[in-house]
């Protein structure tokens, strides 16, 4: 079966052979093969990982001259100078018969590379004795190159063009023609702001025939607030910014202020060195500003596992691994991850280098907090409050002051209460004569459930007759007591009740639920409510405490399961003694609204005269009070009970709770920040990256490879950041301008944006890369200046059409055409929103929830958030503001290759799938946009003919005017849809109803809107609509 695999290996070589005709630098321009520049890089890329200094598989080290000219295990000579076909080296990379084709674990050598090796051996395999193998290109200092001379000075109107043109001319490729103005303004608008140009902007540009017309457009776009919103997307992918923790308890957390910081920094064109320093170490800057601290959210975006049973130290170690790896990828274009466990196999970073970087990040506190016995954890870690709008802040200040006053009062009340303790204790323990209970004489009983009743001899009421679900009893009664301080309600058993009661609903489960008890005093014509301060019962069911009967909440109440079939009582202490006169009557109301006849079958009401505290004293307290000697615990219990009786304290506590609730509701939002612990942790190399196996101790430091001027930087994050932006680090500027270039051209000068190491691709235009890198450093680190230079180049102004010339540059590696690629996920949506006229320009703030189908968010774990589709302009805000929940990101973005932001992503893939087609065709969010576009086509154009409307809609989507056949295709569709709708008018209603609540546009002509919906739907689905 190996055969098939081998055939498939040959195949790409064939493809590349064709490419090689024009693709080879060496063959076309430089016939002399040099070991250092041509051969050694091939070894490094393909061979050293198994046959180098780290490993010598089959006893071969191609990194050493003697070995390379010696014999292999098979006794065959590896390289025979002058005889490529007899050299084992060539056999093993070309001839599968000679054994498994090398390299077995990666892409094969290109035809071009093989040709270089052949020619090198043929020409004598010159391997200089004293090869100090050159430092890998990316680690060499950036040197500003001189501008190359080119033939066509007129074309090369900008330094970039000279570098590009030189390479094109070397390959005999002609650059493409200049694209027309409409295509250019569309390209540059989408590239800089992620939004299409408006028709007015297009027309203005077409009319502007001044020399600076192009520059004016670029300046306008760079100054637009939309610029930061577009360019933030790629940076937030690097920063793996999201709005949730990730992992099992994927709860939402606030760090959107960091996202806004990025957008603002980009809009302000913050110097890029400062941009780096503030994100890595803003908190450590002298007199760090509020904004500088927000910036450190960059490394607080890391995922955090708070699932029950997690081990926080492991979690913390993983977070630091992520910080180190991300730092390596973003600022050094280098994957450091391998060095977590062992020395890097291909690049000059060892394990010690890794843990010295680790040490910089090892001094921040734990980010999970124990909230349940060492197994339940919550996301924690340093946060910072954000400023509130002045109105809200004022309100908060008032509340805070009120709270302070109340707290003071409470302190006083506590003191007084402490003083009264002894007296109280004496009173309740002195055996002061207990007051009198007296059964009330019932004057009238009424109920809402049509029950019947009889008064028994003992003064109790027996309820009979129909058993209602719910009921309310009202009892009017008199007492001979002059002074009443408490009321007792007894729920008694009786043989006439099912299961003997006391409840009426069930003979097995004879429960009742008294939801509310209220008392009024009737004196002459005046009826006044009687305040109840406290309740106690002989027994309360779990979660159905008797206090629920006096809390004003009809959902709570007093019940007695499972103590069925026996009498129960509850005593209610009155806040103030009732002064009873001859004519006074008590009116009691008992709400029993649980249903299923859970109502009291026999009840008796008594009144008490005397100190109200006595009857409501729990037995336990009564017993403790009379005890001669009490333990500390018992004494504490008594004091606590006493304290809880203090009415003033109760009132104050209630008020304090109320204000605290209000304060909580107006709490300022927060954002996650980095904070250094006072005492730094010790860092050790971790064996195999295991946090439980520390080895040698290390101190913070940059990789030894760059060990130049290391001492001038303090051993903390700020020192690291300062080193990263210094010219001791040749990678930062190169890696950065390369990413910007790729964002504009769809591919990097170094194609592997994420890897500038020896395994990455070499730059196609090394001088151009270094020129851009030095421009960045020398021009105040201005990102906008670099971007402006690039987009004003002739290179960027080329047409993107494929031509015969394109066959020489199929991948547009040499920039013989203008860029053309699909928009990224967020921009596809932003673009459609802009076209439909629905786009909101509201910036910043908490993330938004546009429409998504139900059932997307359904993770395991506590406190899961709910998706609530916005009913206002938040539904139409730009993609950068959509909430990013890591375990279920916004589905229509995912279809278009948005990552889940669980880890740093440098380069999103750009796929082309049927799910994307389904999204644009059918996602209700896009349908709503299609309705918006239909309304625009019907209401906005001056030319109100079908043709005029089509041209207008077409221009909104593609910026250009349609060709006749394009108009005809759409007119055709229009005709058929009109006929279909005429035949089935029901469709009108359905299509118009596609919009969701809160749709901001007015649908004027439903029938025509329904017809034009089809045209909009088609236009929004065009390849050109979603292409830049």
């Amino acid at each position, binding site marked *: 079966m190996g055969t098939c695999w081998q055939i*498939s290996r040959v195949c790409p070589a064939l493809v590349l052979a064709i490419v090689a005709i024009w693709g080879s630098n060496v063959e076309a321009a430089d016939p002399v093969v040099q070991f250092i520049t041509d051969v050694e890089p091939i070894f490094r890329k393909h061979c050293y990982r198994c046959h180098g200094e780290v490993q010598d598989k089959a006893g071969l080290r191609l990194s050493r001259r003697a070995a390379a000219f010696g014999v292999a295990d098979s006794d065959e000579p590896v390289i025979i100078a002058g005889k490529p076909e007899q050299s084992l080296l060539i056999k093993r990379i070309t001839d599968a018969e000679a054994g498994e084709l090398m390299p077995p674990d990666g892409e094969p050598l290109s035809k071009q590379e093989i040709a270089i090796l052949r020619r090198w051996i043929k020409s004598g395999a010159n391997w200089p004795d004293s090869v100090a193998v050159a430092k890998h290109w990316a680690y060499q200092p950036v040197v500003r190159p001189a501008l190359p001379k080119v033939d066509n000075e007129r074309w090369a109107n900008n330094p970039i063009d000279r570098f590009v043109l030189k390479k094109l001319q070397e390959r005999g490729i002609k650059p493409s023609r200049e694209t027309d103005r409409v295509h250019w303004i569309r390209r540059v608008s989408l590239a800089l702001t992620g939004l299409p140009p408006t028709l007015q902007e297009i027309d203005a540009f077409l009319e502007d025939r001044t020399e600076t017309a192009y520059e004016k457009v670029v300046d306008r776009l760079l100054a637009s607030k939309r610029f930061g919103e577009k360019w933030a997307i790629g940076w937030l992918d690097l920063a793996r910014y999201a709005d949730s923790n990730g992992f099992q308890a994927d709860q939402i957390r606030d760090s959107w202020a960091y996202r806004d910081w990025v957008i603002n920094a980009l809009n302000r064109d913050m110097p890029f060195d400062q941009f780096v320093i503030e994100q890595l170490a803003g908190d450590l800057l002298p007199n760090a500003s509020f904004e500088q601290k927000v910036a450190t959210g960059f490394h607080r975006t890391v995922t955090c596992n708070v699932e029950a049973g997690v081990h926080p130290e492991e979690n913390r170690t993983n977070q630091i691994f992520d910080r180190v790896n991300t730092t390596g990828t973003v600022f050094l274009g280098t994957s450091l991850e391998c060095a977590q466990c062992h020395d890097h196999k291909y690049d000059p970073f060892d394990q010690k280098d890794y843990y010295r970087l680790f040490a910089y990040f090892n001094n921040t506190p734990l980010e999970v907090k124990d909230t349940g016995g060492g197994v339940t954890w919550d996301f924690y870690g340093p946060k910072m409050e954000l400023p509130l709008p002045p109105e809200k802040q004022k309100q908060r200040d008032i509340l805070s002051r009120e709270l302070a006053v109340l707290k003071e009062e409470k302190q006083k009340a506590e003191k007084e209460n402490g003083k009264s303790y002894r007296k109280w204790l004496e009173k309740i323990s002195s055996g002061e004569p207990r007051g009198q209970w007296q059964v009330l004489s019932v004057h009238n009983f009424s109920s809402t459930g049509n029950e019947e009743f009889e008064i028994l001899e003992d003064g109790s009421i027996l309820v009979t007759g129909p058993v209602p679900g719910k009921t309310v009893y009202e009892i009017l009664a008199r007492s001979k007591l002059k002074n009443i301080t408490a009321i007792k309600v007894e729920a008694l058993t009786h043989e006439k009740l099912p299961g003997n009661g006391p409840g009426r609903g069930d003979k097995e489960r004879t429960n009742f639920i008294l939801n509310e008890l209220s008392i009024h005093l009737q004196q002459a014509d005046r009826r006044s409510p009687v305040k109840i301060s406290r309740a106690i019962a002989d027994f309360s069911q779990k979660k159905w405490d008797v206090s629920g009967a006096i809390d004003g909440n009809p959902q709570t109440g007093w019940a007695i399961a499972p103590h069925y079939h026996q009498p129960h009582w509850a005593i209610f202490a009155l806040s103030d003694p009732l002064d009873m006169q001859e004519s006074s009557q008590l009116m009691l109301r008992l709400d029993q609204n649980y249903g299923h006849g859970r109502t009291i079958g026999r009840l008796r009401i008594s009144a008490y005269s005397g100190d109200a505290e006595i009857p409501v004293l729990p037995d336990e307290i009564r017993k403790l009070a009379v005890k001669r000697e009490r333990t500390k615990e018992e004494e504490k219990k008594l004091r606590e009970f006493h304290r809880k009786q203090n009415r003033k304290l109760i009132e104050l506590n209630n008020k304090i709770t109320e204000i605290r609730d209000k304060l909580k509701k107006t709490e300022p939002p927060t954002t996650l920040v980095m904070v250094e612990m006072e005492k730094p942790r010790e860092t050790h190399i971790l064996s195999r990256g295991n946090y439980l196996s520390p080895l040698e101790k290390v101190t913070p430091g940059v990789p030894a490879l760059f060990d130049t001027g290391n001492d001038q930087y303090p051993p903390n994050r700020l020192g690291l950041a300062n080193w990263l932006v210094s010219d001791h680090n040749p990678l930062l500027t190169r890696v950065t301008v390369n990413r910007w270039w790729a964002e504009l051209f769809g591919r990097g000068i170094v194609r592997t944006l994420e890897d500038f190491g020896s395994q990455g691709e070499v730059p196609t235009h090394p001088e151009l890369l270094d020129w851009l890198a030095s421009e960045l450093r020398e021009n105040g680190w201005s990102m906008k200046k670099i971007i402006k230079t690039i987009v004003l180049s002739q290179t960027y102004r080329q047409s993107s*059409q494929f031509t015969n010339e394109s066959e020489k540059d199929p991948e547009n590696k040499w920039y013989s055409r203008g860029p053309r690629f699909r928009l990224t996920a967020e921009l596809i949506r932003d673009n459609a929103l802009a076209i439909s006229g629905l786009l909101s320009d509201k910036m910043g703030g908490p993330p938004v929830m546009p429409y998504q189908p139900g059932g997307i968010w359904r993770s395991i774990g506590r406190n899961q958030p709910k998706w609530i589709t916005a009913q206002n302009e938040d539904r139409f805000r730009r993609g950068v503001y959509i909430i990013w929940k890591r375990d279920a990101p916004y589905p229509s973005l995912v279809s278009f290759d948005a990552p889940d932001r669980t880890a740093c992503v440098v380069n999103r893939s750009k796929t082309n799938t049927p799910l994307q087609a389904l999204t644009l065709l059918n996602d209700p969010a896009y349908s709503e946009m299609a309705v918006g576009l239909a309304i625009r086509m019907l209401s906005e154009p001056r030319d109100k003919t079908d043709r005029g409307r089509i041209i207008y809609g077409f221009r909104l989507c593609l910026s250009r005017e349609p060709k006749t056949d394009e108009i005809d295709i759409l007119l055709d569709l229009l005709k058929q849809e009109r006929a279909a709708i005429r035949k089935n008018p029901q469709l009108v209603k359905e*299509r118009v109803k596609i919009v969701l609540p809160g749709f901001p546009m007015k649908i004027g002509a439903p029938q025509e809107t329904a017809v034009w919906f089809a045209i909009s739907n088609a236009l929004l689905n*065009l390849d050109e609509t979603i292409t830049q």
Partner: protein
Amino acid sequence: MRDSDMLTCLQMTRRYLLQKSGYGLGACALSTLFQQDCSAVGKGNPLAVRKPHFPARAKSVIYIHLVGAPSHLDLFDFKPELQKRNGELCPDEFFVGKKLAFIRKQPTLLGTPKDPRYEYKKCGQSGIEISNLLPNLQKVADEMCVIKTVTTEQFNHAPAQLHLLTGFGRFGRPSIGSWATYGLGSENQNLPGFVVLITGNVAGAGSSAWGSGFIPSVYQGVEFRSQGDPVLFLSNPKGVSVESRRRIIDSVNRLNQVEYADVADPEIETRINQYEMAYRMQTSVPELMDIESETKQTHELYGTLPGKPSFANNCLLARRLVERGVRFVQLFDSGWDMHSGVFKSLPKKCEQVDRPIAALLKDLKQRGLLDETLVVWSSEFGRTPMAQGTNGMDKVLTVGRDHHKEGFALWMAGGGVKGGHVHGKTDELGYAPVENRVDTHDLNATIMHLLGMDHERLTFKYQGRQYRLTDIFGNVIQEVLS
């Protein structure tokens, strides 16, 4: 679109066939794809069928993941000694210096209750021991290959799910299903190559459990949902009829062709094809999801009720998917994390999955599909032989088991594995392997092997490294291969 138009379009394309920039995939993907498949060159389709490294034993995989981790000691790895010593404090070496997720005090040993309901039975000719909680699986024991000695590195759910399914306990790597689809493509171009079916909550690792990490996102799993549109945005908006949809897609494609004639970017041609496929999916997916067409016997076998989402429905759908050439079908079922009440909850969960999984094996077999379909029962880890919570006579219904990474049992059946076979042995208390220890990388290497791929050669270059599913580990478990 008229055929003649399409033809012109294809002729125009021929010029660019060799130059195709790999479907717009990430930079590194291109060369890797080219290497793997000559036939895909020119088609530019990343899901085109690619030949395996060597003859495959299984064409498709149905991978059933029991989220939360079932108590393997009460299902597939019977421990009479543990039963005997139930209630004793566990040996020190089970606890001292060990990291456990929840247990904080030295726990007692917890045996399977001595109750006929929980007893084990020797099943089939092979005599594999399976718990009475799984009466239907007992009947297909001779198809099953039980591996009793799987170990993992992670003891929290989400990291352990990532570790098992992506080969690495943190985020960012491609999942096993996406590796399989990346390596082999898909046999059915009207359906995604990697389909995910979920009952209950989504696993803690979220969509990363079926994500594509750094390989192109065409290889990520596509969830077929049991409620609403089975595939997101599959159905037309209200008011858009099938005819209307066809007309709109025709117009879109005609306009795209005009653009293609002008610009000649091969991506446009791909987009035209994708719109056609989207249209076909609007028919093929509902047809697939409509299980009503199955016979009464089949419904009885699985215990399925059309229109009522269930794990059983997903098992039946899994068969329908592999029948149609879908490469990798992954079922997730949540609710197996039994820290308390393990003996109360386990029977209930077993009842939900036992019959449909057994039915799936039988059904695949009678259709001649079992030979080419690998069925896997897995979980992110196992459960401790020690009790979590109080153990004792009256606590049978409340006691639970904690997460256990030192050794647990799972099984495979079908495509290329030995039926009626047990691999590996744990100690008498079921704590750790004593014979034939296997780790999750070995398991993944074996699954890839059965699909005809060498796990060390199925690589993707990213950040200068040839990444693979098995990280730098993994050995094919030769003993389980038939």
